[in-house]
């Protein structure tokens, strides 16, 4: 999966799961504010990541994720790490 494909996939499930307008998802936008995430929603984000990419996000990882771009970078890195270990 290319980086562009990963980003399309992420945007797709965020729109579907969190019911946010697709046009609001831009790389520099704030992830938490745009998706209106509360502490419960982060649990669902963990579930979605596991089912879509097969890796478990730990709570501490979210500390350094502010924008969608941060999130894309994080997922791309984890996907590459996973590939490397296979």
């Amino acid at each position, binding site marked *: 999966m290319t980086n562009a494909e990963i980003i399309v996939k992420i945007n797709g499930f965020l729109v579907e*799961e*969190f*019911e946010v307008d697709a046009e609001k998802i831009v790389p520099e936008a704030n992830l938490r504010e745009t998706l209106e995430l*509360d502490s*419960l*929603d982060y*649990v*669902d984000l*963990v*579930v979605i990541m*596991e089912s879509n990419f097969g890796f*478990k996000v730990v709570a501490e990882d979210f500390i350094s994720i502010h924008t969608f771009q941060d999130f894309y970078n994080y997922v791309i890195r984890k996907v590459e790490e996973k590939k490397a270990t296979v």
Partner: protein
Amino acid sequence: MNNRVVITGLGIWSCIGKNLDEVKDSLIAGKSGIGLDAERKSWGYRSGLTGIVEKPQLKGVLDRRARIGLSEEAEYAYMATLEAMKNAKMEMSWVEKNEVGILYGNDSSAKAVSEAIDLIRLKKDTTLVGSGSIFQSMNCTVTMNLSTIFKLKGINFTISAACASGSHSIGLGYLMIKWGLQKHIICGGAQEVNPYAFGSFDGLSAFSIREDEPAKASRPFDKNRDGLIPSGGAATLILESYDSAMERGAPIIAEVIGYGFSSNGEHISNSSVDGQIRSLSMALNDANLKPAAIDYINAHATSTPGGDSAEAQAIDAVFAGCNTMVSSTKSMTGHECWMAGASEIVYSTLMMQHNFVAPNINFEEGDEFSKKLNIVTKTTEKNIDVFLSNSFGFGGTNSSLVIKKIK
């Protein structure tokens, strides 16, 4: 303080209709909501019979956070409550500024619990059940979700009393308003409909196995009955003090005038004629009515040999010589269990509003006890001023309610 307690809103989601109009038409037509569920047979159920209840589509109706905490039965309860609040002319803007409570009957959320445990066992990770699971899994799933969705600020808890849960919720709501502790309470009962909920009940051979004729399987009081059919959905009633209803300009549908309750103090699953008589008598005493004043009895009768027999004896003992019309709407709906005590008040109130008694379908021949009752087998035109509804549950919990027409 003794406030008058009235019903200002009704709502229903059941196997015989997804709103009051559909349900009224089914009751008049004597239409069964029972069908065969192949999945139950594949799970090893002795009986695949069940009420066939449509699942509500709530995407686009409720936001994600509200939706994902709803168990199956809470979804039904949401739909029933939405209809009841609309009929009671309770706008959200009014609800947010007033103290509206909720007392709702529910006694399981087996599907949500089972699915979460299955997933945890499979994944070895509790996080992966997601954030909604806990709010679906607790017995109070209906009250915790609806109190949040409808911004309720009054009394808020669930009544778990087996198959009398819905009836006791109305009885307790009635008492709280009568005694001046609350002015407006959402009451009702909800019941999940899935193979998770009743495997153990099926295992007791309590269900009818008349699978070749699903619509004829539920036959309360009939000599050849062979068991109940599990069913479900949700029913909601808005109870208010008479003064509050008048002040709001709310439509007053009927008045709750009597609540009786008792515990058998005997066997965990067998019925008790004595326990039922005590419940019936207490309700009549509370309503300050003689048995002859009751125009119609909506029986608990579920189509089990033992249960119907006990109720027939209890009704005969209390209403001897009154020739009171009796029917069990479970002949059409199956046994709606935790919901039944509330749904049967909705069904009977519809009969009261539209001047008919719904039939006890499939009643062909009475047994030793039921032949003494005036069981209505065809839809009958009838002015109902006062009716009584029975609900009895495992553990010997009994509840009887008396409802009066507002004139």
